[in-house]
């Protein structure tokens, strides 16, 4: 089965996010003063072949640990969506 996998990689809360801070400042300047706590990360999507969603989830988490995220500064969250469900 082909699964569609979505991975969110974000800086750990303890790591300063200069990009987020800069965007937040820009948003305030544009008048969007209520925007707070802006953080910028990466959004990785891919298709994975797996027997079931659980296997796809495990495989994706493995990829994150191995390559996609750097555990010293980043954390990740994986979501598996059935290929057919994707719009």
């Amino acid at each position, binding site marked *: 089965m082909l699964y569609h996998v979505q991975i969110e990689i974000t*800086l750990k809360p*303890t*790591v*300063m996010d*200069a*990009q987020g801070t*800069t965007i937040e400042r820009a948003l305030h300047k544009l008048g969007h003063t209520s925007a707070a706590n802006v953080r910028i990360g*990466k959004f990785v999507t891919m298709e994975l072949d797996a027997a079931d969603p659980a296997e796809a989830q495990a495989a994706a988490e493995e990829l994150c640990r191995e*390559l*996609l995220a*750097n555990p*010293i*500064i980043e954390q990740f969250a994986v979501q598996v969506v059935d290929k057919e469900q994707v719009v």
Partner: protein
Amino acid sequence: MKFGVVVFPGSNCDADCHYAAGNVTGQEVRYVWHEERDLSDLDCVIVPGGFSYGDYLRCGAVARFSPVMEAVVTHAAEGKYVVGICNGFQVLTEAGLLPGALYRNDHLQFVCQPQHLRVEAIDTPFTHFYKPAQVVEFPIAHGEGRYYADPDTLAALEANGQVIFRYCTPAGESTAEANPNGSLNNIAGICNETRNVLGLMPHPERRCDRLVGGTDGKKLFKGIVESMMVRAISMGHR
């Protein structure tokens, strides 16, 4: 004595390191293609700057899986020397040869400029020709050179004297203004616990010629050669 300069797809300071190491020391230098696995002929491996694999996803993230990196790990475990410069430093942290991580500069811009550094430790095979706390000028050229390590790691680095270069003013003060990227503790370069692996963001190979900016980097390459010779003699005597 022989240097090797690793070439990943996307390395772009490989030729500069090759030229500097050879020109300054008169020793043999060869390129090491990233798929090589045998480094037994080399005494010092230089992992050069550039954008290995485009620095896509994260600097150094893909390069560290190249076959050559296994050999570099072995080379380091044998006590031989490894220097990672700029992107090379990033690759070494990704590969776990050096602690911590390097990420996006705090001002979000790539920055290329001459940069003053204080030599924090001279008890390494790389820096023993410098004077204690000597201020040198190596340029920096990076977009993701902000050093980060968790508090425990950072404390250990400082306690062990593993911080080798720190960004500073021309007068040698490590102020916030002298910090070009937001690195913790103004860290520009560190070594591993056994002090045979060095990583630094600034480019010593760009300061090996008066004509192109200065010669502060020469002592690093010369220092390595002397260390290699001493090491070879002591190994031979064993």
